[in-house]
């Protein structure tokens, strides 16, 4: 619909009150509200229905738009976060501009938080009146799209990064894989073999690395970090900088720094333009020095599970040249520990421990192998069976979290309680393996600031929704893969990396991304060029035009937060879809209520 035609015509508003089953109807008299709405200025049609989001519900709206010539729609139902796209889409399908649809939240903000039906109904009426008042002032907004630079940057060259990179590259897009160490493989290359198949990691990793190195679409930057990110979804500019220590013979597959071969002088960065970014920066390992009662660092016979992997890789678990007779594994070191500040479970340690314990038994058939646990979390495919086999091979599982370790002669003593026997024990061991947990990396602070990525309480990167959006982030175009989002094993890492690739591929394959329409706009005649909007914007959207001296707002960067609009001393900025007149209309309606 043409904007001017819409604005000139009298508002013809359709109001739809949703029952949401009993979610709203139990606490709000929806019929009454609908009847009330019919009396509001501009309202031509007022209905109530069981589930507005359902097909027939949307059909009602569409029918009314056509038959009653509606030019505004108000849906009083759940939070817009649920179904705003649904109702906008329904309107759009019959030719109405989607921004002429407004929602009143009478569920989360009314029926779900109040119990007095009378009062809740009155409040719902007030909310509807307010929204109708705003709706009368709504304007159609332009739907825009932005082109997408084909290509993705993957930050991190471990298994997550590599798998994500391959999926994007296999779909025909250039991928730039940035790895801060001097080789690919991440933490996996330090592992011996994987559960539950017990196949050597080298056999898994080798071919994967080869595929990456030989893939015509993949460019690998080793010894490099991402030092700058500009732009927005579909149009990122990523700055990659090699590490400062010069390498006279640069590692293979890293492009020569622009400006000549490295020799210790100026370090040249590379700027890459891409459409999507995948973060696959991995994890840190808990430092068991933080649990001094376990004696790590004090006794040579207390090691971490990673150190054990190394020894298994080398084929010997000898301590001071002697084969251990009694080997103990302690789980949950640095995990499930509120005192330490890591209340979460590190997810992989139960299987890692079962695997290592079993391998030790196979390596040293005469040895005593005991695993001390609180729970056994062998949940994956084939995992429970693997745990059964470990016990079958003679690994003894004793329930009790070891409290401290001290020395007795050549051995160490584990002091704990066997909770099933109900007795405390002193367990002598020649070798103790601490199943150390995963932690969020400490060196991603810069990156998370560059990308504006939020973290969850446990320190890992925060996904957009814990159930339904495990790889997307609050930043459009930036996706998470692997343990940087939370501890996981190889299988789940690979699945998640591929999931991130899918999300990254969507804008790349489409070639465009939609841009938010409810953005701020500057009226150039009113703008004094003071630049305050530029200062206050958290997203870098406004910029002063050097020629005209007025501010222009990049509508793709703009998130519609409104900070500039309220800051502007000349009132030159309008936040579309939340204009002053719209909001004041809402306030007036509420105040007059």
């Amino acid at each position, binding site marked *: 619909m043409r904007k001017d035609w819409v604005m000139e015509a009298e508002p013809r508003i359709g109001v739809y009150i949703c029952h949401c*089953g*009993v979610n709203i109807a139990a606490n709000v008299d929806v019929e009454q509200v609908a009847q009330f709405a019919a009396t509001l200025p501009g309202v031509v049609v007022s209905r109530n229905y069981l*589930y507005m989001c*359902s*097909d*027939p519900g949307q059909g009602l709206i*569409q029918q009314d738009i*056509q038959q009653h010539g509606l030019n505004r729609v108000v849906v009083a139902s*759940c939070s817009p976060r*649920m*179904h*705003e*796209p*649904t109702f*906008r*889409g329904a309107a759009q*399908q*019959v030719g109405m501009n989607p921004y002429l649809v407004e929602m009143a939240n009478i569920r989360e903000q009314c029926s779900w938080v109040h119990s007095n039906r009378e009062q809740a109904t009155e409040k719902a009426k007030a909310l509807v009146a307010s929204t109708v008042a705003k709706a009368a002032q709504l304007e159609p907004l332009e739907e825009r799209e932005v082109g997408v630079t084909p290509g993705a940057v993957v930050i991190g060259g471990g298994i997550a990064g590599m798998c994500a990179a391959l*999926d994007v590259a*296999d*779909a025909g897009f250039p991928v730039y894989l940035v790895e801060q160490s001097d080789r690919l493989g991440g933490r996996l290359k330090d592992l011996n073999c*994987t559960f*539950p*198949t017990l196949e050597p990691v080298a056999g898994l990793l080798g071919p994967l690395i080869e595929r990456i190195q030989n893939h015509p679409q993949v460019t690998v930057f080793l010894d490099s970090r991402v030092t700058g990110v500009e732009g927005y979804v579909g149009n990122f500019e990523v700055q990659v900088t090699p590490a400062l220590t010069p390498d006279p013979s640069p590692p293979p597959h890293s492009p020569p720094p622009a400006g000549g071969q490295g020799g210790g002088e100026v370090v040249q960065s590379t700027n890459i333009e891409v459409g999507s970014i995948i973060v696959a920066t991995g994890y840190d390992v808990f430092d068991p020095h933080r649990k001094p009662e376990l004696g790590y660092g004090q006794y040579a016979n207390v090691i971490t599970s990673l150190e054990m992997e190394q020894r298994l890789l080398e084929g010997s678990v000898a301590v001071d040249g002697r084969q251990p007779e009694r080997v103990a594994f302690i789980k949950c070191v640095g995990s499930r520990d509120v005192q330490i500040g890591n*209340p*979460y*479970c590190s*997810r992989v340690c139960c299987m890692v421990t079962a695997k290592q314990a079993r391998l030790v038994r196979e390596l040293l058939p005469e040895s005593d192998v005991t695993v001390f646990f609180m*729970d*056994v*979390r*062998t*949940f*994956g*495919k*084939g*995992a*429970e069976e693997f745990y059964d086999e470990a016990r079958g091979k003679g690994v003894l599982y004793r329930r009790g979290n070891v409290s401290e370790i001290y020395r007795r002669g050549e051995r160490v003593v584990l002091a704990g309680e066997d909770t099933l026997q*109900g007795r405390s024990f002193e367990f002598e061991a020649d070798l103790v393996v601490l199943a150390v947990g995963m932690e969020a990396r400490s060196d991603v602070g810069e990156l998370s600031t560059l990308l504006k990525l939020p973290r969850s*309480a446990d320190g890992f990167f925060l996904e957009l*929704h*814990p*159930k*339904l*959006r495990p790889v997307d982030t609050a930043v459009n175009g930036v996706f998470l893969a692997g343990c940087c*989002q*939370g501890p996981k094993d*190889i299988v789940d890492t690979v*699945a998640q*990396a*591929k*999931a*991130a*690739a*899918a999300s990254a*591929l*969507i804008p790349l*394959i489409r070639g*465009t991304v939609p841009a938010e*329409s409810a953005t701020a706009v500057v009226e150039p005649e009113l703008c004094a060029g003071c630049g305050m909007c530029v200062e206050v914007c958290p997203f870098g959207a406004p910029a002063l035009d050097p020629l005209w001296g007025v501010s222009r707002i990049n509508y793709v960067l703009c998130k519609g937060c409104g900070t500039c609009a309220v800051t502007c001393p000349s009132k030159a900025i309008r936040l579309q879809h939340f204009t002053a007149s719209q909001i004041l209309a809402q306030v007036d309606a509420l105040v007059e209520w």
Partner: protein
Amino acid sequence: MEVGGWRSNEMRNSCTTFPKAGSLREGPASRVPPSRKLGAFGKVRPAALVIGGGIAGIQAALDIADAGFPVYLVEREPSVGGRMAQLDKTFPTLDCSACILTPKMVDVGRHPNIELMTYSEVVAVTPPSPPLTGGGERGRFRVQVRRKPRYVDVSKCTGCGSCAAACRMKGRVLNRFDEGIAKRSAIYVPFPQAVPLKYTVDPTACLYLSRGTCGKTFLCKDACAAGAIDFEQQEEMVDLEVGAIIVATGFDLLDARLKPEFGYGVYPEVMTGMEFERLSSASGPTMGKIAVNGKEPKDVVFIKCVGSRERRREQAAPGSVPYCSRVCCMYTAKHAHLVRDKLPDARITVFYMDVRAFGKGYEEFYDRVKHERVMYRRGEPSEVYRRGERGDQGGRLVVLAEDTMLGKPVEVEADLVVLANAVVPRTDMADVAGLLGLERSPDGFFQEAHPKLRPVDTCVDGIFLAGCCQGPKDIPDTVAHAKAAAASALGVLVRHSSSTHSSSTHSSSTHSPGGRPT
């Protein structure tokens, strides 16, 4: 603004046609030739087929469709939504499951790139020849889909429900969506937020269809103002050509009667976890009220690992599976919380062997539930019996277990016992495997190509797995897995986009593709 919510005009034009305003309704779906090809949909760009419309299938379909490729989403039930639609709240966030799922269901229903085929089944699949990986040749799967007759004309049905209210069998047919704890009519929608919201006649329950007569008149037809009911409707066979297939057929739950020691099916106070979900759900048969035999339970006992983690010497111990079902520890914690929420004074006990709270936020949720005075007792219960004289229905149930922390047997009385029965492969896995040429793991689920590095690929090029049909998973892992399958499928489809199309003719279709679910 989420991708997939609404399309710009430009986007839509580049891949498929879309219905013009005013032409919302399709042409009649009945009275068409037995087998026909669909129209332009899937010809400009290669299409994907997603088998199964649960959250896995929905997610995979949305990702592929958002990237611009056409998707056929085939679902055997009358509505998409799968298991997730049956859930009350999801852990650990306690989101209302239907609330977070229905936007995706609606998305899938109106996505211009998704052809939603509900109440339909895949009956034949011919792999491409030459194989997909052959250089440059057009390798498409040929798929035949049976569209089962609803006996309702979806172009006329408004979902008003008058038919169900009038049906002679009202309140007499066990409703599978409610796990059999509630009843419906012979003409039904599985749940009120169904997509598409169109009624379907259950041929086994409908008196006319199963026995030939339904009294003097069809009460449903009389009640239907739109004249949508059509008992002459035939099934329809549709041929599709797709470049990639994603299998998202989901899972079943162990029949708890195979664990007779717990009294399921004998004692009304013993129910499964999924039945509890329906009981607790605000849109369920009791509107969310937890009551057994009409009374609020004072003692609630949860038993985990019912059927899971059992190795038995007998090869086919029907009630035992050796693997862990992965989700029960968390959903039991969630159920315990829901009981505490609704019945603040109830005594709640969870019997366990381990507590597998391994995911993001899970351990913290477990801690929270314990602080709500849910008593976790270690010990796998051995049996449930009724205390009192034989046949004395007044006696309470007793759960017998050893409390391994106390080191002695205990008897805990209960008014409600909830069993976390094992997640098992669907009963028709063998059929589906045969149809598609898939292999199965020893645990009965579909076998992925490599257990570590290729969690979604199968032994058949171009066919991928998504969700629980490959093994039990919670929702976040299912969504990730489904997206992974989509990534693999997109790789195939992109490669096929660049290959030449053969110029076979296609019959014109009375079916307008895309946009409206059917």
